[in-house]
Each structure stands twice: as C-alpha cells, then as structure tokens.
C-alpha cells in the first residue's frame, strides 16, 4: 500500500517516462491536495493531508533515476526507508586507491592551511571525483532495463541487486568525499548542505 510505484498506478519497474510521471503527479495532486478539501470534514482533511504527503514523497523519490533504484532495493529488502542515511558509507574497495590520494591532499590542506598549490590540487581532485560520481550514476541508470527484464523473465535477480547495492554505496561514498573537499575549499557555504544527509 505504501509502495510509491503503486501510488502512481505503476508497476515496480525502473524505466519510466519522466513526463508521464509528472502528468500523473499533477493529476493526483488535483485530487488529494489539501487546497481542494478546505471545506470538508476534519476527517476528510486529515486524509487529504496524508494522501498528499505520501504522493509528494513518492514523486520525489521516483522522479530521480538513482533514488528510484535506491528505493526499489529497499523495497526488495523489505525495509522501510527514509531519504537520509546517517551512517557514513564505507569506501568501496575499487575506489580505495583514488580516495587515498584525495584524503592525503585533504590532510595536508588541514594541517598546513590552504596555499595556492594545494587549493589547485584539491580543486582538480574534486573535478575528478564529480566526473566519477556522474559515471556511477550513469552506470546505475544504464542497467535499469536489465532489471525490468529480470523482474518478469529469467535472469539472476540477486546478482543484479547486489551489483546495484555496491554501485549505490560507491556513489554515496563519493558524495561524502566531494562534500569534504568542498568544505576544505571553503565552498561549503555556497553549497550550504552536505549531500550525505539527503
């Protein structure tokens, strides 16, 4: 019942047309939004409020291809989720080497203040990490079709799920490191919030 796909009357599949999702979101909002239940009974108003809250969350999660995968995995695991994860994700093995270098640069920057050279280096590292994050996201989205096929047909569901989990962990880790680098560069204020908490 709480299934975000079901909220939109959609099957549990990863590929979906964003325009179509938006159209359904607007249509359902016109049904549930509290604005249209102002004169109704208290009970009806409370119902509209929670229906509309559920709808808004469902839309937020499903419209982004990566958070869609995250949600689907939680569903498969039978977890109740929420948007944030408080635990700092662990570094995936295949990223360790690259990350070490960044950490080193970060340590240096913290210890010796930020001179032009280390600023330059951190800035470049950040650029690289961001490209890497984007690549991870694209890789995740690219296998959406595979999942949709596996769900209805033959194929190794568990292996694919496991792969998704690893890639999501890698991406989450990249985001925290990017945040740390941005903070060190003093651009944390502009960004205003750490991604890791989203």
């Amino acid at each position, binding site marked *: 019942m709480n299934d975000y796909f079901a909220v939109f009357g959609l099957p549990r599949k990863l590929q979906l047309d964003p325009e179509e999702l938006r159209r359904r979101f607007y249509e359902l*909002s*016109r049904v549930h939004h509290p604005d249209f239940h*102002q004169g109704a009974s208290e009970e009806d108003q409370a119902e509209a409020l*929670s229906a509309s809250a559920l709808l808004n*969350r469902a839309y937020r999660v499903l419209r982004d291809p990566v958070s869609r995968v995250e949600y689907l995995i939680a569903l498969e695991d039978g977890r109740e989720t929420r948007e944030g994860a408080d635990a700092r994700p662990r570094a995936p093995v295949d990223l360790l080497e690259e990350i070490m270098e960044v950490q080193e640069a970060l340590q240096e920057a913290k210890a010796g203040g930020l001179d032009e050279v280390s600023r330059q280096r951190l800035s470049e590292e950040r650029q690289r990490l961001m490209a890497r994050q984007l690549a991870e996201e694209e890789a995740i989205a690219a296998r959406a079709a595979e999942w949709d096929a596996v769900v209805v047909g033959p194929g190794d569901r568990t292996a694919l799920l496991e792969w998704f989990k690893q890639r999501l962990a890698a991406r989450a880790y990249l985001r925290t490191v990017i945040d740390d680098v941005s903070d060190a560069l003093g651009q944390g204020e502009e960004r205003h919030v750490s991604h890791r*908490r989203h």
Partner: protein
Amino acid sequence: MSRIVGIDLGTTNSLVAYIEGGVPKVIRDVEGRALLPSIVGYTPDGILVGEPARRQLVRNPARTIYSVKRFMGRGYDDIKDELCHCPFEFLASADVVRIKVGDSAVTPPEVSAHVLRALKQRAEAFFGEPLEQAVITVPAYFNDSQRQATKDAGRIAGLDVLRIVNEPTAASLAYGLQKLAQGTIAVYDLGGGTFDISILSVKDGVFEVLATNGNTHLGGDDFDRVLVEWLLADIRETHGVDLSQDPEARQELRLGAEAAKCRLSFEDRTLLTIPFEGFTYHRELTRAEVEKLIGPLVEATLGPCRMALKDAGLTPDRIDEVVLVGGSTRVPLVRRRVQELFGKVPHSQLNPDEVVAMGAAVQAQILAGGITDMLLLDVTPLSLGIETLGGVVSVLIARNTTIPTMAKEFFTTSVDGQTAVDLHVLQGERELARDNRSLARFDLSGIDPMPAGMPKIKVTFLIDANGILQVHAREIRTGKEASIEVRPTYGLTEDEVARMVEESFAHAEEDVNARLLIETRTEADTVMTHVDRALAQGARLVSPGDLGQIQQALQALREVRDGRDRDAIRERTIELNKATERLAEAMMDAALKGALASRRADQILESK
C-alpha cells in the same frame, strides 16, 4: 463558504485584497490608501496603527514599534546585534523576543496582531459584514517558528488563518492568473526586511515551486541602516556632533535616509535636509555614492539566487521569465544585478507593493473553491532534522521538498523501565545541531515500562501545506498513542496564545474606543488650527457678534478636547465649524474679489 481575504503582512507595509469577478482587488482605506504602514504606536490613550503611528515615530520613538516582522519567531540571542539600531527596548528573555512598552512587555505576534486587526476592520467596513477567515503571506524562507508566530498573530487578531502562503509564490499566482508569466520563472522579492528567491515551473495551471532560498534578515531596512551609519559619521565630521546615541535624531535620520534612497531610484542626485537642535544638516547624495554603500547588500542576494538555481537543477539561461516583487526592487542597482545574473530583462507590470496581497487573494479564492483550475505546489525552504548522539543532526526531510510531506522514524529507550523519550527537532542546513535553528523539544511520555530497547515508538513528522510541522507518536507494541508535549524554543506556548486571544477580545472594544478618541481629537485639532489661522487673517471681515460666537465655540471645544467624551468633542467640533461658516464665506468672497480685482487689473493692462 464565507468570505476569505488575502493579507500581505509586510515588514514595512501591509495590505488586504480579495477577488471580485475573478480579478484580485486591493481594499483601500477611507482615504484611498492601499498600504497600511506596519507600525504600532503605544500611547497613554491607546494604540495607534498605520499612518497615525508613523506620524509619532520621531516624537515617541521608544513606544512606536516598526519592522516587528524581523523579530517574529525569534529569540533574544538572534537579535542582540540589532538592538543598538532600534529605538525601542527589548527584555532579555530566553524564549521569544519581548519588547518593552512602558511598564509592560509585548511580543511580536501581539504587535502584528494590531496590524492585522486594523486590516480586518478595514475589510469589514468595506464589505459591511464581519470577516473571520484569511490567508496570510510570509517570506518563503521563514522557518517553522516564524510561520507559527504569524499564525499566532492572526489568531490574536481574531482571524482564522486558513493558510500561510509564501510571498514569492503568491506573486507568481497573481502573475499567472493574468497569464503574465509562464514556463520556468524566477521570482525575486526584496522588501523592507526580507529577501526571497523562488524558482517555479508554471504549466497548465500548476504552479510547482522547484526551489527557494533567501535571507529573512536582508532588505531595504538594511540599506537605510548603512546610509544612517554613513550620515552619522558625516555629521560627526562636518558638525562635530555625535548623534548616534540620540534615538530621536536617529529616527529623523532614518526617515530622511529612506526618503532620499527612494528619490535616488528616479534621480541621479538628491538633497537631504534635516533640522536638528542647533543646526540644520544639508547633504547632497548621489546615486553612485549610495550604490557604493548598499552594493555589498545587493551582492548578498545573489548567492541565494545561485543556490536556488542549483537546487532546482537549472542554469540561469533556463529561466524563461524573471519577476520582481517588493519595494526595494525599485532600486536601479538591484534591477541591474538581477538582469545580469539571469540575462533577462525582469518583469514588473504588476505593482510590486501590491502583487503579493493580490496573490494571497487568489490563494484564498482557491481555498474557497472559487478557482479550480489552478494548483499550487510549494516546498519547505529548510531541511528538518532531529538531534542524534554527539549533537549531530539527522535529516528527516530535505529542503525544497514539496509540501505537504512526511517522514517516519522509530525511536526506543536506552534505560530499563524508561517511560519517556525526549526529541530535539531542528531546521537548517548545517551538520551540527547547535548551528541549526532549534524548533522545539518533544517529550514523548506514557511509554509502558519495558527493558531498554524494547519499546518501538513510531514518530511521524508531517509538514503541512503551511510549511508548519506537526508531530505524532505511537508505541508500536501496545499501539498506544504516546502523548507529546511540545516546548517551542522560540515561540509562544498554546496557553500563552490562548491568553492573548482572550485579552485581545477583552480589549478589542477598549482599543477601538481609544483609537476613535484619538482620531476625534486629531480632527478637533485640525479644525482649531484652521480657525486660529483664519482669525489671524480675516477677523476684521465679520461682525463683532460673529466673532464672539467663534471665540465662544473655540473655548467650548478647548474645554473638552483632552477629556474622554468623544461625542462632546465631536459635537463641539461641528459647532465650531458652523460658527465659522460666515467667516469662511467672507474670506472666500474677499479672496474672490481679490482675484477678480487682479484679473481686472490684468485686463486693463492687456487692453492698454
């Protein structure tokens, strides 16, 4: 459904609007003014609101409260830095800000309630029937406490606040209703005390806010403040006088600086003249000079714009239209910088002072069921989280999430037999609890004693369509609704609000009477001044009998002027008016004759 109005409760000015024949209309006072200055004056005879309060700003600085919106939903600690700029006194208190008025203290919601009540009365006089329901706007970047404080103000004023709407969103509704803006739009709202930027997608009647950002402490007031500081320094230099500690002088300077700033929006240079005791200060100001002073403040609005764009996932070139709202967007430098950022000439067809109230009226009409094809989807401006171990915040609802929205979280006990759990809820974007805005502490109690870790309390955090938080809790094992006591960090408690509502009912009649008395006296004063002046000029034009009658009527009015009998003052004012009729006529005749005579002289000259 009964009538619902839209109210823009501004830092500087407030106004009320409604929908007539599908079009938003602003309700004016008897003198035709739409804007009600958000100023409340406390006098021994009662409370003044709006223009009369504005007139006593300089005379009675300590008891004339302006820009109170800056203090809504805030704590004493938040505003310590500003205290020296304010001519009124604050009481150091841990929770809400309290302003000293004589021997007592008032809170910002109570002050705002006076402004709201004046607008309510204005609307009631206009409609000829009681008004109970309203939509009130707030800056989009207002946090939970500031929104709650606004709602409290409405309640104290005897209004049922059906919805709190974000100001830039309201503006977009007004533009959208008239099909003046479509596509992806940016609304830049710089008023007296606050700054908001909102990015919306407007499509098929759906107004979806994509992201919002801002600063609830940045506006035209701050422009005035840097100007005043500069002028004070200039006066020190040129006249060797330090006026910085003189509240009356400061107030004079503030008003002079504001007026000069406004003139400089249309002229390149302007002359500031302020008479002080012992000297008159003259200073020519150029637009370039003022732009240099306010430049950093204008720059400070651009960061939030970039952040909103980023959160919306857009680059400036993806914005189709830019809409300007708020009096401070008349400053040419502001327009220039906004235009540069978005690469587009901004719109301002709708009056920037009135557009927010008009949009609030549109939202009111949607709630009343009178508009069904428009749908507004707004967002919460700040992330909501709870404090966890080590003072770190765990975010439950991210900023720019469409509202209403909810998040569920499980909590348990850490000690055997523990029957209560304490939650600290915060708003903001920083990692540590202490750097964020504390909203409230929730005490969940009535948990059955169990071993530690056994109870499973499901807490639902719900942000409603007003952007205001509601919290519910349930113990899963027993299914029992846990009771929650809310202790707002910077807000009035339910009991306090209830008491204020009661008091305001009790005082409502008293307040109205006091105001009417003051107005009647003002009217009497005006007539007496006119008569004095007329006598000085034209006493010789009327008979001694008439003159005696005028003197008598004047004396009679003087006797009752300071009393509390309003009817007596009014009657004698009317009598004085009547007694001077012949004098007025005679003077008119004389003036006419004078005019005729000079005309004749002209003709004679011409015909020569």
